[in-house]
């Protein structure tokens, strides 16, 4: 996915300060502070880390219990400003519900109506454009219930992208896509200047994102570039022919060698860290 970043401004697109959301007494998001600019922003973290809750607040679907939140310089707590945010927002929920009796074209057109695109001809043209851009040109007039899971996911993605919103919030956009479709997602062009996406797939972050946030237990534990995340594990990754009990984490690689994470023993063959190494090290620190 590539964004159109031709216009530059210094204001952050998404700003959060001490953001809290609880379910009962359990905090799902527990004091998140972040300031994200333009480009594609990745949100990583294990299941239950609060990624979806954070995205739903950014998508103005869920109100925070405490803290300050601003998108595109606007405050979602204010009804008028919230509507303004929604005019410039595209949202792909984690498990998007779709009307099975609709065609992809009907559904995207319906979402465009909700986004206040009243010009019918323009709307139809735009609906076709986004459906073509996600590779659904052939099935746009087929009933959604007859489509595969990956196709449904792309219908919802097209619905999020309709009208080229400024801010695109995508909750696991690669969910249900096969490797080929995942690859195509990476080259998808969007007019949106900011894309905030959560993912389980670390390599996706490396391929797509200009910046990355990692969440554990409702808190942001890392903010930086993908290279910086990989850099966390610099000098702490080594490879060996056998398992090493001194490593805090070891796993066997495709070449048959063991890859170890931790304080390398003297004489160890230290290798360049990857994004996975950086993430795993961070996760390990959280656990202990």
């Amino acid at each position, binding site marked *: 996915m590539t964004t159109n970043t031709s216009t530059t401004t210094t204001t952050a697109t998404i700003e959060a300060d001490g953001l809290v959301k609880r*379910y009962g007494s359990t905090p799902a998001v527990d004091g998140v502070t972040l300031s994200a600019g333009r480009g594609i922003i990745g949100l990583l973290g294990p299941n239950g880390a609060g990624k979806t809750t954070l995205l739903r607040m950014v*998508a*103005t*679907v*869920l*109100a925070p*219990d405490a803290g300050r939140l601003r998108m595109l310089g606007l405050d*979602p707590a204010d*009804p008028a400003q*919230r*509507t*303004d945010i*929604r*005019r410039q*927002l595209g*949202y792909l*929920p984690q498990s*998007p*519900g*779709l*009307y*099975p*009796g*609709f065609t992809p074209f009907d*559904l995207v*057109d*319906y*979402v465009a*109506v*909700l*986004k*206040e695109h*009243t010009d*019918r001809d323009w709307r139809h043209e735009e609906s*076709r454009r986004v459906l073509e851009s996600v590779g659904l040109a052939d099935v746009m*007039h087929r009933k959604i219930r007859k489509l595969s899971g990956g196709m449904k996911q792309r219908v*919802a993605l097209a*619905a*999020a992208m309709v009208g080229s919103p400024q801010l695109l*919030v995508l909750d696991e956009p690669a969910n249900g896509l096969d490797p080929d479709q995942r690859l195509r997602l990476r080259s998808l062009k969007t007019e949106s200047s900011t894309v905030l996406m959560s993912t389980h797939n670390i390599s996706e972050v490396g391929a797509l994102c200009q910046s990355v946030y990692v969440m554990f237990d409702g808190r942001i534990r890392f903010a930086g570039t993908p290279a910086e995340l990989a850099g966390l594990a610099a000098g702490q990754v080594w490879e060996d022919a056998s398992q090493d009990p001194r490593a805090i984490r070891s796993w066997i690689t495709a070449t048959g060698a063991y890859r170890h994470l931790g304080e390398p023993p003297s004489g160890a063959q230290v290798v360049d860290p990857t994004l996975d190494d950086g993430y795993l090290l961070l996760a390990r620190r959280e656990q202990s």
Partner: protein
Amino acid sequence: MTGPRTPRTPWHVDDQILAAYAAGTTPPVLSASVEAHVLGCADCRQRLGDDADPQGLDEAWERLASAIDRPSPGILGRLGSVHGSIRSTIATPAMVLAALSAVALVVLAPLTAAAVTGDAGLLALLVIAPLAPVAAVALAYRVQADPAGEISLATPAAGLRLVALRAVVVSVAALVATMVTLLLVDLWVDLTAAMVLAWFLPGVALSAVVLLACTTRLDPLRVAGALGLVWAAAVVTGSTAGRRVRPEVVLDIIASPALQTAALVIATAAVLLTVARRDTVSYRRTA
């Protein structure tokens, strides 16, 4: 003559312009000239065919065919598309389902009862008529009833406008169905004007309370269920006070000015409160 006449023209479109036309980059006036000439000149038509992008042509045909094949909206659609966006906003499967259930509830149950016995039919009608719009409002709000609810919540149309619009549409469907039912029941039982109209304000009041519940943490569907049970219990208890079913006793109470005024006050207060609290409809405090 052997075949269509092809007028010979002394000049032809030059290659550069023809290529630009095929690529769609010629200005409108020049395009019109090229089209006028190509229509009459087989040579240029042939050359244009060589230049044209077959994929682009296929796509153009596809677009044209799909525009022609698309079914026309029909009378209801046309009526609704006075404002195109309103039509699409309410024409979701969830809404169709809600409207159909409300109509079925209102029409089928009392008709069956009325066919068996006039009094029981009237009783059933008294119980159900005000509850149909209540069910409609609850169903209109219920996000679970709207599979794409999460997507629509993040759009500028989300909020009371969408909920209220949907509720009104389904309520109107229920209203019409109730009126039709009353006229059909009239074939078995003689109805007074009071009987035909008395249920209306209580129905509006109950629906407005459910709409108000939409702005709180309460589940509107549960509130609707609770209100429905209370209403049904009151009507059945009131009707069966003696040895035989006497729904007309309850009807008199419902049609009384005191109860009608109370219903009007409740409805007005609930609607005003809902409007004051409209913000919470689209910005949820709970999951």
